[in-house]
C-alpha cells in the first residue's frame, strides 16, 4: 500500500487535498497531515512515506527546504498557489507540481505519473528534482562578492579560514559549523546564504544542512536502503546526501 504525507499550513487546503486524493486513489494511505515545514521534515524522516505533497510556503521550513532534507526514497509533489520561479523551475525539470486551487483532472494526471514512477524505480525523477533545486537556489541567490575566506569564532578568537581548507559546512538551527581537516569553528551565516556565495565548481549543497568541498571528497557509500553518504578525506564521519542531490554523484 502506498503511504503519503500532506504538508500545508492552511488546514482547509490540506483537508481538501486529502479528500480529493482519497476520491481518486482510495487505497492511498495518508499517514500524516503536517501543518508546517518542521513537522513535515520530522514526519518524513520518521515515517518514510512513499509520497509527500509539500506546500511551498510554510512556516518553519519551506517545502523546498523540506525536500532538500529528504534522505530516503520519498517522492515529492510540490503544491503551490503560484510562485513564478518555482513553477518555471518545475516546468523545466518536468517535475510534478500542483497549482492551487486544485483541478481534479490535473490531479488525476499527476497521480498517474506518480503511480508509474512508484511502480518502477527510476532515477529520472531524482534528476528532475535535483535540476529544479539548482534552478531555484540560483534564483534565490543574492548577487555579491564570492567568498574566499570565512571568519569564524572559536574559544574567544576569530580565525580567518581560506575556503579551500574547508571540508564542509553544516548547520543546525542557529549556527553553521565550519569543518577543516584539523578543527571546527562556528559562524552565523545560514547554509542558503553560503551556497549562494561559494564557488559552485568546488562547493555543492548536498543536503538542506550541508555544503561540501568536492576537493576534499574521499568517496561515497550507499546503504541497504539505497541512501547515499559522503566520506571526506581524513574523516570518519559520513555525511548524508538528500535525495534531491543524489544525481550529482551518480556520474562519479
Amino acid at each position, binding site marked *: 500500500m502506498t503511504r503519503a504525507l500532506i504538508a500545508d499550513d492552511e488546514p482547509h487546503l490540506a483537508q481538501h487535498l486529502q479528500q480529493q486524493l482519497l476520491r481518486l486513489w482510495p487505497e492511498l494511505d495518508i499517514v500524516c497531515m503536517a501543518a508546517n515545514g518542521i513537522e513535515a521534515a520530522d514526519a518524513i524522516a520518521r515515517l518514510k512515506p512513499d509520497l509527500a505533497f509539500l506546500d511551498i510556503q510554510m512556516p518553519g521550513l519551506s517545502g523546498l527546504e523540506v525536500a532538500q532534507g529528504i534522505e530516503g526514497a520519498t517522492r515529492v509533489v510540490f503544491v503551490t*498557489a503560484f510562485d513564478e520561479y518555482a513553477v518555471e523551475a518545475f516546468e523545466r525539470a518536468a517535475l510534478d507540481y500542483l497549482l492551487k486551487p486544485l483541478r481534479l483532472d490535473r490531479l488525476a494526471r499527476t497521480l498517474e505519473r506518480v503511480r508509474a514512477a512508484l511502480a518502477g524505480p527510476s532515477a529520472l525523477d531524482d534528476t528532475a528534482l535535483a535540476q529544479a533545486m539548482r534552478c531555484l537556489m540560483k534564483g534565490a541567490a543574492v548577487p555579491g562578492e564570492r567568498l574566499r575566506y570565512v571568519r569564524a569564532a572559536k574559544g574567544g578568537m576569530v580565525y580567518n579560514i581560506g575556503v579551500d581548507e574547508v571540508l564542509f559546512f553544516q548547520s543546525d538551527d542557529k549556527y553553521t559549523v565550519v569543518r577543516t581537516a584539523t578543527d571546527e569553528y562556528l559562524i552565523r551565516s545560514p547554509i542558503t546564504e553560503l551556497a549562494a556565495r561559494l564557488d559552485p565548481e568546488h562547493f555543492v549543497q548536498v543536503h538542506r544542512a550541508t555544503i561540501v568541498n568536492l576537493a576534499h571528497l574521499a568517496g561515497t557509500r550507499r546503504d541497504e536502503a539505497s541512501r547515499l553518504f559522503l566520506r571526506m578525506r581524513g574523516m570518519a564521519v559520513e555525511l548524508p546526501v538528500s535525495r534531491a542531490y543524489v544525481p550529482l554523484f551518480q556520474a562519479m
Partner: protein
Amino acid sequence: MTLLSAFTLSWRSFWTLRKRHDGPPWARFLIASGLALLVWLLLGLLGLAGIVTIAVPNPAYFARLLSGLLALFMVIAWSMLAVVYLVERLLPEARLAALSPARDWRAAILVSLVLLAGLMLGNLAGSAVLALLYPDIEVFSSTALRRQLRLLQFLPFMAIVNGIFWRQRLQRHALKAQAAEAQLRLLHAQIEPHFLFNTLANIESLLDTDPGRARAMLEAFSDHLRAGLTQLREPETTLAAELDMAANYLRLLQIRMGGRLRFSVEAGLDARAARMPPLLLQPLVENAIRHGIEPKIAGGCVRVHACVEAGRLQIRVEDDGLGFDAARAARPGGNGMALANIRARLQHRYGERARLSLACLDGGASALIELPYQVKP
C-alpha cells in the same frame, strides 16, 4: 478645433519644454503676448497706486511712455518664446523630457536660466527699437548696458518667486507620485498570486464541506476587493473605512490560517470618524501578517487599536509574531518600502505633526501612526 480648445491645449503645454507642443503655434504666440500685456497692466496699476513713480512732465509724454513700455514687454515676451523655441529645437528629446516636468531644483534652475536669457535678449532688442522710436524719453534712451544692469536688480525678487513656484510644483508632484505608489501597492497586494489563489483555493475547499463558511469567505473577499477599489478613488477617507478594510482582510486570513491567527480591531466612535489619507493602515496590517504571524509556527495575534488623545489620532498595529530580527532572517528582502511610503506621505501632508514609529515588543512588533485629529465639519 474650436478657438477655446486651441487655447486650453496651448496653455496646458505652455509651461513645459517639448519638441512638439499641443495646440497651434499662433495660440502660443498669443498667450505669450497676453502675458506681456498682463504684466504691463499690472505695472500700470502699480503706477496708478503710486508704488512706482516716474517723473511725468505732461500727458503726451505719459502716453508715449506707456505705449513704449508695452512695446518693450511684447518684444521681451516674443524673445523669451523664441529662445525657448531654440532650446526645444536644439536639445535632444530625452534631455527635454528630463527638464520639462518639475523633477528637481537643477532642472528648475536650468529652465529659469533659459527664460532669463530670453528676457535679457528681449530687453536688449526692445531697447534698441525704443531708443530709435522715442529719442526724447530718458528711460528709453539710456545705454543698453545700464538697462541690463537695472534689470538685474529684479533678479533676487524673481528668483524668490520662481523658487516658491517650483517648490510647490515639486511637492505636488511628489505627493501625487506617493499616493499613486500606495495605490499600486494595494492593487499589487490584492492580486498578489499567493494571496489571490490561496484565498480562492480555500473558498473552493470549503464549498463541499462547509458551504456557510465558503459563503462568508467569499463575502469577506469581495468586500476586501471593493474596499480597495473605493480607497483607490478617494483622496481622503475615514478611519472607519480603513478599519473595516483591515478587519475584512484579517477575517479572510483567519479562515485561511485556521487557529493560527487571532485578531482584534478596537476604536472609539470619535476615532472612527477621523479623516485621514487612505491606505496608511492596510500596509501595516499586511506587514504584521507577512513578517510576524505567517512565518511563525504557532501563529499569533494581531491587534489594531485606535484612539484620540489630546487632539491627535493614534493608530496602533501590534503583533506577537516573530519580531523584526527573526522575521528578517525568515523572509529576507522585507517590505521596508511600504513603511518608507507611509512616512513620506505623512511628512508631505502633515509635516512634523504626524509620524510613524516602530517598536520591537518582547516577541513581536508594534507600529504606531500618530496624526492630527480631523473630522469633517
